[in-house]
């Protein structure tokens, strides 16, 4: 996780406290705590359920989206059946999500980030797509569930 992100989020909290916006401050702190807790909880594990990774990515993108509300929207979806019992390596997709955010912030028009997991037997396919104006950025990973390693890494265009 980019530490820049953590301090900038704390900086937002400082802003809301200063403004006396109690609800926003509390909500920010809770969201950041959840994200950090899950990150630390999964660190060092060889695999986590797909659902955990999905909620980590959603928590991260939610916080970034709060900071840059008008710059991008996002969705994180899984089409994997019983994704709570399918395991993948933790934090593998996270840098791609970070990169998608920083890419969106550099675009002139507001962007949209879509992270989608879908079955592609025997693999689990993960697509990270960012679009803004006519530009787009996409990464397509094929993960091997259970075995916890990347078997193929393809179409990592400009990532």
């Amino acid at each position, binding site marked *: 996780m980019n*530490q820049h992100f953590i301090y*900038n989020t704390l*900086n937002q909290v400082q802003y809301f406290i200063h403004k006396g916006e109690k609800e926003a401050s509390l909500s920010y702190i809770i969201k950041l705590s959840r994200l950090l807790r899950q990150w630390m909880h999964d660190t060092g594990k060889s695999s986590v359920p797909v659902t955990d990774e999905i909620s980590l990515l959603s928590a991260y993108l939610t916080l970034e989206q709060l*900071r*840059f509300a008008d710059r991008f929207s996002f969705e994180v979806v899984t089409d994997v059946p019983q994704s709570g019992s399918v395991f993948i390596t933790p934090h593998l997709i996270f840098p791609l999500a970070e990169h998608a955010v920083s890419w969106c912030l550099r675009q002139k028009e507001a962007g949209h980030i879509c992270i989608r997991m879908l079955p592609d037997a025997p693999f689990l396919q993960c697509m990270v797509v960012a679009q803004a104006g006519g530009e787009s950025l996409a990464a397509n990973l094929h993960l091997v569930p259970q075995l916890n390693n990347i078997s193929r890494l393809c179409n990592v265009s400009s990532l």
Partner: protein
Amino acid sequence: MQRVIIVEDEARSREFLADILAEHCPTLQVVGMASNVAEAVAAIRDQRPDLVFLDIELQTGTGFDVLEQISGEQPSIIFTTAYDHYAIKAIRFSAVDYLLKPIDVDELKGAVARTRDLQQRSSNQQTLDVLMHNLKQLRANENPTITLSVAEGIEFIPLREIIRLEAAGAYTNFLLKAGRKMMVSKNLKEYETMLGEHNFMRVHNSHIINLAEVKRFVKSDGGYAVMSDDAQVVISPKKKDDFVRMMMSRI
């Protein structure tokens, strides 16, 4: 009254800084705000502020890009940044002030007070020149080069070309890759500190070696290192533990 411009890429950060300046630094007047490099350069040229709060990470570039484009204008600068990265090292060496975000109001007041002491505009320019120089040095450190005065002229040698240095009385021999050799009229001591930061080690009174060029360490005969050019370099007994530790700590 010091006239101030705030350069921050996030709206809330700009607003927050402007608010706490109004609250805690009554001698400052915010005359402009900018969210990217182009706006910052234009605002500084138009307003000619005394002081600029400059975020290092801007979405379209960095605060240093702003500095490069405003040479001639000489406001005091206080950098702001969310985390402690390589550039902070250069900033510290240059005695330019910086604030880590979230911003500590006491640190902010301290930094503002120091800019008031340093209001002579010429010293601002000098400080910033030193900063830009240091930054370039840091970037160049990825592949540093050493300047050697030899009998024939001046040689610029990338450090990775150097296998080892050997004392020759008051002079030093540089043993380079491809069997090249250069004699420099300085003693070995001169290079010990300079190269120490770059993975070189003085292993003996007469020898400095590039640790990246060590092929083997042989324990017999009191211990010696075999270099990539097959030269054998004696390790002095009191340096042996340090040497082994340095070699083991490498990946």
